[in-house]
């Protein structure tokens, strides 16, 4: 089972690559980060592609809604990533 830290680090890393000027430290993990980080649908798709490249996971479009907050990402990825 992939650990929380790897998931968190990967997610933050990808998001800071898409929003380089943002302060992820102050980001509320439970809110939709898209308006806060000014991430549009194109950037969000890059995020999904990044998850695929780093964690090997193919997220179906129907599941995108689960990955809109830091806590949502952690829960979803933990559930769907297996050793």
């Amino acid at each position, binding site marked *: 089972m992939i650990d929380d830290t790897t998931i968190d680090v990967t997610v933050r*890393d990808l998001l*800071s*690559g898409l*929003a*380089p*000027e*943002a*302060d992820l*430290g*102050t980001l509320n993990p439970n809110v939709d980060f898209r308006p806060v980080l*000014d991430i*549009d*649908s*194109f950037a969000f*798709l*890059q995020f*999904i*592609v990044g*998850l*695929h490249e780093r964690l090997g996971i*193919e*997220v*179906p*479009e129907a599941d995108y809604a689960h990955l809109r907050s830091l806590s949502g990402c952690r829960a979803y990825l933990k559930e769907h990533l297996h050793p």
Partner: protein
Amino acid sequence: MPSLGADMEAGTLVEWRVKPGQAVKRGDVVAVVETDKGAIEVEIWENGYVQSLVVAAGSKVPVGTTLATLSVGGVPPGPAAPPAPAVRPATTEAGPTAIAAIPAPAPTAPVSGGEVEPAAGPRASPAARKRAHELEVDLVRVVGTGPHGAITLADVEGAAAKPSPAVPTPTRPEARAPPPRPAPSLDIRRAIGAAMARSKREIPHYYLATEIDLEAALRWLEEQNRKRSVVDRLLPIALFVRAVALSAREVPDVNGFWSNGTFRPSAVVHVGVGISLRNDAGLIAPALHDVDAKPLSTVMKELADLISRARQGRLRSSELSDATITLTSLGEQGAETVFGVIYPPQVALVGFGAIAPRPRAVDGLLGVRPTVNVTLSGDHRASDGHTGALFLAALGRHLADPETLK
């Protein structure tokens, strides 16, 4: 120095990618020019051999200045002449503006039409330039403290001693307060302002709007994406771009350029795509080439690449000058309807608002469908409302039948 936008008056030649005597072919990148839109790779349109580099790297020169000479065709020139560092009418400025940097704003030096501003001296002394090369310091990021803002040897050595202060790294912690708007956006804003002022001054705009039902298109996209790996997934904007291109083929009076008092329809369709830059840094509309001739998957891939590079300030000169019609989609930012301003010398701009569920008459009953408000801003010298309406009707037909967009 190429014109890389209707508003551009001068550019800084940052780097030569070729040497005298080198063979070049059409499409090769020969130089990098710094503009408010970022570092643009300039492509050459001839096959031949580079004869001499007239303008030295680091110089800012007006649009139209000869940058290099080329011998066109077969035979390479004789022993290469050393590059002549002659800089023809040039304005110098304190510290160039690179899109990623946060330098002091450059003082604007007026250069009126017929006059030649005497060059006040090289922007960086040869010694400074040589030292910069030795220390691998990028001159573009050095603020000059010499006369007229020229970069001195000391400036280069100072810059080498500390890391570049300007490029934000992803892990750099930011201040709590919203960051102040970076200076380069002032240049972009000024450039956009100039272009828009010119457009409104010269182009008699007319506007048409229509609401397009996207139920079929979005269902089709969903089905496509279910079958596709994340790396191949499609976004609605790719459908919009393809639909605009195919409709422009069908209604040619919206696709081309107005110059010297006539409309010149274009044989190709290069769609400019409005891309918002991060941090309120402005909106640019680089072109995707030959969209009418490419399959949807290719268009999506190229669009993704274009958006990434635009946001990193790494576009090519052909992308900045070739659009034959432009599309702007601001729906995600919240606008329901966008009435855009045409980018001269183009003659039309298509605006897409937010996709939202809206009430609609469906088979005589009230239904709810995802729809988008689409507008056409047209140049009344090149087309009129009737033609514009035909274009919007074609657009509606294509989006209602997404199979035609593949």
